[in-house]
């Protein structure tokens, strides 16, 4: 009986911890200041969060159904392989697009050599306009037009 209580506590602890880690990872997206810093949240926080939840799931089903449930390990495995690769791709894209980083950043991005970039540089897209501001600006200009007319 106590065994079940202890396992339940452990599972709940893992679930809560996993939720907290995943949440802070996502909160990092909101709070950190530039693209490269924001990358750290999802590559780390979320991995451990998911890991905790999967371990909890493994424990729960192993205990309640009395058979070994280990296929969650596969999810963890794939996640551990794919998350850093995604992070690397994103970071590399950010470098090639010359995304700005906050001024406190130490060290500098070394000049990308041609062989690092590939055949040609990725063209930098035009800066996106702020959706609300543009709409407001449009309305204002229309208003002005009506006034003058």
């Amino acid at each position: 009986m106590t065994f079940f209580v202890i396992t339940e506590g452990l599972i709940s602890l893992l679930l809560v911890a996993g939720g907290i880690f995943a949440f802070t990872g996502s909160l990092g997206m909101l709070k950190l200041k530039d693209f490269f810093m924001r990358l750290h949240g999802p590559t780390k926080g979320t991995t451990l969060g998911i890991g905790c939840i999967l371990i909890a799931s493994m424990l729960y089903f192993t205990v309640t159904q009395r058979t070994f449930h280990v296929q969650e390990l596969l999810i963890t495995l794939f996640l551990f392989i794919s998350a850093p690769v995604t992070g690397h791709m994103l970071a590399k894209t950010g470098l090639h697009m010359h995304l700005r980083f906050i001024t406190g950043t130490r060290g500098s991005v070394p000049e990308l050599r041609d062989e690092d970039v590939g055949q040609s540089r990725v063209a930098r897209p035009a800066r996106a306009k702020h959706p609300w501001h543009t709409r407001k600006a449009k309305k204002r200009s229309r208003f002005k037009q009506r006034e003058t007319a």
Partner: protein
Amino acid sequence: MKALGRYLPTPTLSLVLLVVWLLMVRSVSFGQILLGLFLAVVIPLMTRDFWEPLPRVKHPLKLARFVLVVLWDIVVANLQVSRLILSPKREAHPGFIEYPLEVKDRLTITLLANTITMTPGTVSTNIRLDGSSLLIHALDMGEEQALIREIRERYERPLKEIFEC
């Protein structure tokens, strides 16, 4: 032995495939094992041309130790990053570092880059295609040399020992 080498070009990959298959279907019945074996033979044969020759694992025990160290570091890294995100006052000092690589093999470099991304406050951002250095973005950077030394001692040396010498 040679015939075996022809039909099983990468035995480790075959074994991994078999285990993954059995885990995925969640049964170890005879039929599933047979199907898994079939896949474990056929998939490496079909994808053989894509694989570069993989380095041999020389010290399995050291590999296990390395995996444990990395898992522990992932937990520590998460706590650090979470603290940095959650504390309102502390400002992060991000920075870029060019890390000179010692390992030469491509798989080893990949593993190292993955490890760096998973662990303390660092994301590997760019690799020189000649394999000479790795560009790392650190979320909260102390001293540059200290970070380089830490990565070298903790991750690169073990990887080098496991795969290369």
